[in-house]
C-alpha cells in the first residue's frame, strides 16, 4: 500500500520490531522494565514509533480493569503489545497514554555490551 514511511530514531540504543527490524522505541523512553505481557516480560515506554493502534477494548489485567488498544508494527503488522487508554483504579492512572511492548517482540540494536 504505497511506500510505507518509516520513522527512524536517532539515539544509538534502539528497540526494533523482531520481525521486520523497523524502529519501535528508544532506550531512553523506557519507564519500567517490570511488566508482564501476554507472553512474558514486557517494558513500559513513553513513546513509540511506527505503530498503528487497534480498536479499544476493556481488558482485565493483573493490576485491574483497563481500556487498552493493541499496537501493531506499521511495516509488518505484527502485534507488539498495547497502549493504555484508560485505567480504572487511581493507582494505575500513571500508565495512561503509555505503551507496553513485549520483550520477545523486540530486538535490541546498538546496545553496548
Amino acid at each position, binding site marked *: *500500500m*504505497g*511506500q510505507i*514511511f518509516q*520513522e*527512524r530514531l*536517532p539515539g544509538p540504543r534502539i528497540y526494533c520490531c523482531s520481525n521486520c527490524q523497523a524502529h519501535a522505541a528508544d532506550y531512553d523512553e523506557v519507564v519500567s522494565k517490570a511488566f508482564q505481557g501476554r507472553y512474558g516480560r514486557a517494558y513500559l515506554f513513553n513513546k513509540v514509533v511506527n505503530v498503528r493502534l487497534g480498536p479499544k477494548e476493556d481488558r482485565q489485567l493483573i493490576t485491574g480493569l483497563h481500556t487498552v488498544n493493541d499496537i501493531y508494527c506499521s511495516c509488518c503488522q505484527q502485534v507488539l503489545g498495547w497502549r493504555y487508554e484508560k485505567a480504572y483504579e487511581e493507582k494505575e492512572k500513571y500508565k495512561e497514554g503509555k505503551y507496553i511492548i513485549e520483550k520477545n517482540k523486540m530486538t535490541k540494536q546498538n546496545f553496548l555490551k
Partner: protein
Amino acid sequence: MGGDTANGAPPPKRMKLHMPSIEEAFPHPMDGVAVPAVTIDALGSKGQIKKIEFTRIITQALYSLGYNKSASLLETESGIPLHSAIISQFRMEILQGLWDESLKTLHNLSHLDPETLKSAAFLILQQKFLEQLHRGETDMALKTLRSQLSKLKIRMQRLHELASCIICPTREDILAKVEWRGGGAEANMSLLLHLQSLLPPDIMIPEKRLEGLIEQALSVQRKACMFHNSLDQALTLYTDHCCGRDQIPTQTIQVLDAHEDEVWFLQFSHNGKHLASASKDCTAIIWNVGNDDFVMLKHTLTGHQKPVAFVAWSPDDIMLLTCGTEEVVRLWNAESGDCLRTYTKPTSGFTSCAWFPDGRKFVTGGGDRCIDMWDLNGNELDSWKGVRMPRITDVAITSDGVNMVSLAGNKDIRIHNLKEKSEHVIEEEGSITSLSFSNDSKHLLVNLSSQEIHLWDITANEKLPYKFKGHRQGRYVIRSCFGGSDHAFIVSGSEDSQVYIWHRGNGELLEVLPGHAGTVNCVSWNPTNPHMFASASDDSTIRIWGLSTKAPRVRATGTSNGIHPLINGVTR
C-alpha cells in the same frame, strides 16, 4: 476661490464656507510656467495621480512613439512642456556632441547637488576626451584630461585608466580597454540615457516611463490571477487579466495500466518527451509522450530484486537511474532500455539518488548514513559521512549544481553548499516523508507526516515556510511537486486517492481531483507542457491529466494500455 495663496494660507473663515476639495489651488512646482485655468491637480479615483506628471509622461510616450507633432501639440495645448527650456537645450547639446556648451548648461541647472553635478560632468568630459583621442587629437585630449577632468577629483581610478589610453598604440585598444562604444549619434543617445539616470527624475523623466508603469500593472495582475497557466503572454490592456478555472488540467485524459503492482514514483524527463515510472513490482517503465500528448509504453526495465522506489533522469535525458528500496542503483540507457551498470555497496542499500548538472556524476544516499558520489564508470569518487550523520532518506541537487540537499534522520533538511563547502540545517517540526525541488534552485518542497506541505526558500534565511494543507497523509510516503508555467502551483498526492492542487502564492486549495482507486503516491508535472501532469497510485495505474476542454482519447492502438475508463474528476 478668493483665498489668498501667496503665503499658502487662505483665511480660515473663508475655508469653512468652502467644501475642502481638490479645487484648492496649491503652488505649482514649475515656476514661471503659465498654467491656464486648470484648478484640478489630481486625477484618478483616489486623487493620487498629479495632472502635471501625467501629462508629461503622456507627452514623452508620444515622442518615443514617433508622434512628434501630436506631442508638441499636447505640450502647447496643456501648457505643460515635457522638459523645461534649459533641459531641452541640454538634451540638444548632448545629442549633437557640443560638450563645452552642455557643461555650461549643466552648471546653470538649479537645485542639483554637487555630487550629481560632478558625476554628470565627468561622464560628459569622458566622452569628449575619448572622442578627441579617437580622432587623433592627442594634445587636445591631454588638455581636457588635465584641465577639466582632473579638476573634478572624483573617480580617480577611472581617470587613471583614461590617462593610460593616451599611450595606446591603436584605436581598437582604446575601445576595448575602457569599453568605449565609439562616437556618433548612438553613443550620444546612450550618454544621454546615462545622464538621465543621474539627474533627478522630475527634471528629466526617465525614458519609457509610461511603458514601465503599465508593465508593472500587468505583472501585478498576472500575479493576482490564480489560475494563470499558459505559456504565451497574451495579456491585454483592455480588461484586467483573469484566467478561468479551465487553465488547469482537471480531467483524466489517459490511464496507463502496464504495472502489475503499486506505482510508487514517476517523473517526466526534462524535455517532457518521456515519463519514467517505478513500481512495487520491481520494474521501472519508460513511456513515450507523443506530440498529441498521447503516452505509449517504450521500455520495461527489469532487473531489480526489490521494489523500485526512485528514478532520476540525467540532465540530458539520455540516461536514467533507478533505485531499489534499500537495494542497488542501476544505470540505464533511456533510448535502448539496456542496463549499463549496477552500483552496489556491500554494507547496505540506497534509498535515493540525484544527478549533477553536468550529467556525468551523481550522488546516492543510503541507509549506511553516507552520501556517495559516483561517476558513470562505476567508480566511487567521494563520500560525505560522519558519525553524527543519520540515515539519509532523500537526496537532491539543485539544477545550478550549487547546493546538495539531503533529508537526514527524519526532521532535518541538510543543505550542503558544494561551492563553499558549508552546510546549514533546516529543522522541521514533524517527520518528513519526501523532498522536491523547483527549477530555479531556490525553493524546496517537503511533505510532512503531519499532513502539511512546507515550502522553504533556501537562499533567504527564513524561519517560517509557506504551508499547504488539506490532503491526507499518515503512513505512506507521499510526494508533491511544483507545476504549471512559472511553477505557480503545488500538486500533491494523498492517501484519500485524490490529487490536490494549491496556488503557490496564496496557499489556496484550487482543485481536488478524484479518479484513482488507491493512495496517490506521486505526481509529476510535464516541464514543457503546463497543461499536462501525471499521477501514480496504489491501484497500479498512472493517470495522465489534461485540460477539461480536450476531448477524451478513443485510441485503441496496440499498447498495453488499451483500456480507457474515464472516471473524470468532478471539481468541487
